[in-house]
């Protein structure tokens, strides 16, 4: 059985300034499977919180009715166009990253990522990370509203078939503060802790973890979504 839990919390910097959370989270049950999206609005632009929310909505509106994922490039293009059409402002004023995962009940999964953040998975018992580690510095990223190239996207098809399979989507406010070489252990821990709880308690547990973030001086919004087998 595939389950999902996720949460998004406002970072201390935005809380101190009275600004809203610029990350967005979308998590929906979908034909007995799960659909998840996390998005990080670029802090340098005034309406990026709007872009991130509309990006998550676009994932739901485009992927939910889709009958097939056999052409991910066309699907990503449709998703991007949908986001552009739904934006009431110029895209350059509301850029955002996007990580998404769509899982069918049999474990057949489509994952895609544009920009910073980490999408890590354990599929068929094998661990992987969708996109390579960032080479530059923080907050210098590809994003909806900035990148128009298909080459900027990372897309894969997975099968969450083994009992301990899971995947996690995280914005960089969270992933940048994690030990980079322990992502596999982190995902195992997440799956174990979430699977031991009801969905509501898993969400509460995730929220408490993010609200008690221990990295000194952390500032950014933090968003996480976990899809796991139980």
């Amino acid at each position, binding site marked *: 059985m595939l389950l999902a839990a996720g949460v998004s919390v406002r970072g201390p910097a935005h809380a101190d300034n009275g600004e809203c959370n610029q990350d967005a989270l979308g998590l929906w049950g979908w034909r007995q499977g799960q659909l998840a999206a996390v998005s990080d609005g670029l802090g340098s632009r005034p309406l990026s919180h709007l872009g991130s929310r509309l990006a998550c909505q676009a994932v739901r509106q485009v992927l939910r009715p889709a009958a097939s994922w056999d052409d991910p490039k066309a699907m990503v293009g449709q998703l991007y166009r949908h986001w552009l059409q739904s934006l009431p402002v110029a895209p350059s004023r509301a850029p955002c990253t996007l990580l998404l995962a769509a899982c069918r009940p049999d474990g057949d999964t489509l994952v895609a990522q544009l920009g910073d953040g980490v999408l890590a998975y354990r599929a068929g018992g094998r661990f992987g990370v969708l996109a390579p580690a960032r080479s530059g510095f923080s907050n210098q990223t590809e994003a909806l509203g900035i990148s128009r190239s298909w080459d900027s996207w990372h897309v894969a098809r997975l099968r969450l078939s083994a009992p301990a399979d899971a995947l996690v989507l995280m914005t960089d406010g969270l992933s940048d503060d994690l030990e980079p070489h322990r992502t596999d252990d982190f995902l195992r821990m997440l799956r174990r802790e979430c699977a031991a709880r009801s969905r509501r308690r898993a969400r509460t547990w995730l929220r408490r973890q993010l609200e008690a*973030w221990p990295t000194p001086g952390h500032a950014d919004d933090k968003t996480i979504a976990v899809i796991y087998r139980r």
Partner: protein
Amino acid sequence: MGFAKYAEDDLSRYHAATVIRDREHERLKTGTGAGHHQPGKGTSSMQEPAAKQRMKDFTIAKPRPLPVIVLADASGSMSENGKIEALNHALADMVKTFASEARVRAEIQVGLITFGGSQAELFVPLAPAHQIHSMAAIPAAGATPLGQALALATRLLEDHDRIPSRAYRPVLVLVSDGLPTDEWEPALAALEKSERASKATRMAMAIGDDADEQVLSRFANDREAPVFRAHQARDIHRFFRAVTMSVAERTVSANPDLPAGLVLGAAPDDEALDLDF
């Protein structure tokens, strides 16, 4: 099942449980538990095992670094009119201010590359400001090998071990009072083309009228901070105070990667520093 049998069964069930809540303990002790069992109320803590690991077991315990790398001209001409003394004093002041800045959301790191004589050198390796307890005075002598300093800065910025990718966008500050004496253009082009070093914010200060402002203008890439001209020793202090404030401002803002610009305050009221270049 009679009532007495039911009560006995109820008590034995509590005894067998791993987790017994205080209220239930009390009832068992006082013998009032019989017939007062509330189904479902005591089950959640038994279903949910205590978490053995938390996210904090996987997090980095250090703040994100914000590197500030100063490229300081240490050529012979800097020894004239108290320029090098003013620079040494301003740098020490900047490091001290960074170290005492308590509001920051980042670990401000400082590195110093000097270029004088026949080569550039990493005079102060990149380190957290609060760990730099004293800075040796920069000696000024010889030529102005700016190209070597730019190449050294590029290597440092490209080093993922020294500057991890979670670091905020670094700041490069170039200070010079003369003409470069080596091939600086290929080194600047290499910096501008490099994957990481090209993303650093670059600021520059020209000291005195002999400084090659064209070189410094090509180096500077921060539109909010055009090349600053220092004509007096106190101007060097003004510039570094502005750099200090700009960096400190970035570290407390919601977006530490945005350039904060340079806001130049009034010249310090210190007659001893009032030397014309």
